[in-house]
């Protein structure tokens, strides 16, 4: 690893620590990391969307046209229309004409709601309804084990639970009497489901932290040249940078503790 690569890596570690410092409290390092990431990511997306979408989906469609013909002589001239609509969005820069930008907005929302109606009806309603109508496995009702997830009992419970939870969502009927009882069972099922999926997610989230620890460890390995493949460029400067960052972090922590103790004395 070249020393410059190591410096970049150190920069990454510093920003990692700066972001983690948010857990303690809002502080200048977090503020720096936060403002930096907002700017850099916005710039990153400008570049990526330009090269990835605007060039292939618009510029390349119009590239054989000429600007003085307003690109109307290009082979796919109809791509002028979305470009024009896009330009209409820019009327928002003016106070007087900003109402024009409502046209492309209306078009955008019309298209998206129009797509949603049949698609969501099919995927979320029709298909789920069809999936509910199953032949229950009566021969294997308890599957030798009450906790089996494929037994007839489990299938029946999924069906009944889904119906009950659906009843909970009724807006125009008070949760009273038998209806209220079923709705209560429904909310129980919902809560059990939510609890289970909360508990299940913990593992995935802890792995994220493990990955960050792994990155930090890799940095340490690079600093002390402990890797299996010996770095031909290795020198003392790697360790100097390492200790500088460590010293900096430790110094900040001590400073925080001291100022905390002082504020308590007052």
């Amino acid at each position: 690893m070249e020393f410059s690569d190591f410096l970049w890596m150190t920069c990454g570690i510093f920003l990692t620590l700066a972001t983690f410092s948010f857990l303690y409290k809002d502080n200048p390092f977090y503020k720096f990391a936060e403002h930096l990431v907002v700017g850099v990511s916005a710039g990153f997306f400008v570049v990526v969307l330009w090269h990835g979408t605007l060039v292939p989906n618009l510029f390349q469609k119009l590239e054989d046209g000429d600007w003085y013909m307003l690109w109307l002589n290009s082979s796919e001239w109809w791509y002028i229309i979305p470009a024009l609509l896009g330009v209409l969005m820019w009327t928002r820069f003016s106070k007087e004409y900003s109402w024009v930008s409502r046209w492309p907005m209306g078009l955008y929302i019309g298209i998206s709601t129009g797509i949603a109606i049949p698609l969501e009806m099919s995927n979320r309603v029709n298909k789920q309804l069809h999936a509910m109508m199953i032949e229950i496995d009566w021969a294997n009702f308890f599957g030798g084990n009450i906790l089996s997830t494929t037994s007839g009992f489990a299938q029946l419970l999924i069906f009944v639970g889904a119906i009950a939870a659906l009843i909970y969502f009724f807006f125009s009927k008070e949760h009273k009497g038998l209806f209220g009882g079923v709705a209560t069972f429904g909310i129980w099922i919902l809560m059990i489901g939510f609890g289970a999926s909360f508990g299940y997610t913990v593992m995935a989230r802890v792995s994220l932290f493990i990955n960050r620890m792994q990155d930090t460890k890799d940095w340490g390995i690079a600093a002390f040249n402990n890797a299996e493949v010996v770095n031909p460029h290795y020198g003392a400067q790697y360790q100097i940078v390492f200790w500088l960052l460590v010293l900096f972090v430790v110094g900040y922590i001590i400073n925080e503790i001291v100022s905390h103790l002082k504020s308590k004395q007052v």
Partner: protein
Amino acid sequence: MTEHKNIFDRMMSLDRRWIFLFLIVVCVATYTADFTIPINTEAEVESIFNFLDSLPEGDIVLVAIDYDPNNLAELHPMTYAVVEHLWRKKVKIIFTSLSQLGPAMADQAIRDISDSLKVDKTYNYNGVEHNFKGREIVNGVDYTFLGFKPYYALIILGMGQDFRLNFPSDYYGTPLDDLPMMQGVINYDQVACVVDLSGGNITDAWISYGQGRFNFPLMLGLTGVMVSQYYPFLGSGQVSGIMGGLLGAAQYEELADNPGRAKDGMRVQLFAHYVIILFIVLGNIGFFMSRRKRMEGGN
């Protein structure tokens, strides 16, 4: 104000930064400390281990590294655990990698594992101590890496006829007939079993075209989210064993007494879960005790 707070009230309203600190300390400590935790092994992983462990020296196993770097975190530990176990027992391995982005990663993993085989090691499993001498792993003698070819279903079928059909030479360009271990190895008939490690639908092809057609023992290593949909094949006997996610890999490492990446991860996971549960319990104790106090006070 603070004087009135008893211990239970405090338990109920801890500053969250104590939780963060505690969690960080526990995670870093368990990550850096060198100890192992017992892992409960499940029957579907045990069957894989027992089968592979019963193979005599010189047998051949086909290990299909059919995942790409996206699923590396979950499936790499399995590759390491299984391959090291087999090589320690001097079982020979044929590797394939039927996922487009897989071969370079698989090649790197094979080299890594070869390096770790150079040292002597002692394992203690099934109640017996196993001493293994370190040795050099030789390409063509201990393993053959066939590499990648497109149309995985056809490749799986083709290997049932002859490995040379789709792979006249291996990943490094050596003709298969020039490799010592491939002498007399024609197709699946000479292979003891197939271990497929995959994060996608290549698994389906191994089940229907491979096992379904040529009837070899098939073992699967899958990502955590895939596991539940393959249990039916276990029940029907088409698949002899399943390892699922990091947990499955950790179970194999436990069985082979070869703690590695998966158990390192699980160690941190277990204690992080403990910390969270501990704080939940603390909060609830505080909640119940102070509620009882309040009720008593009210009466």
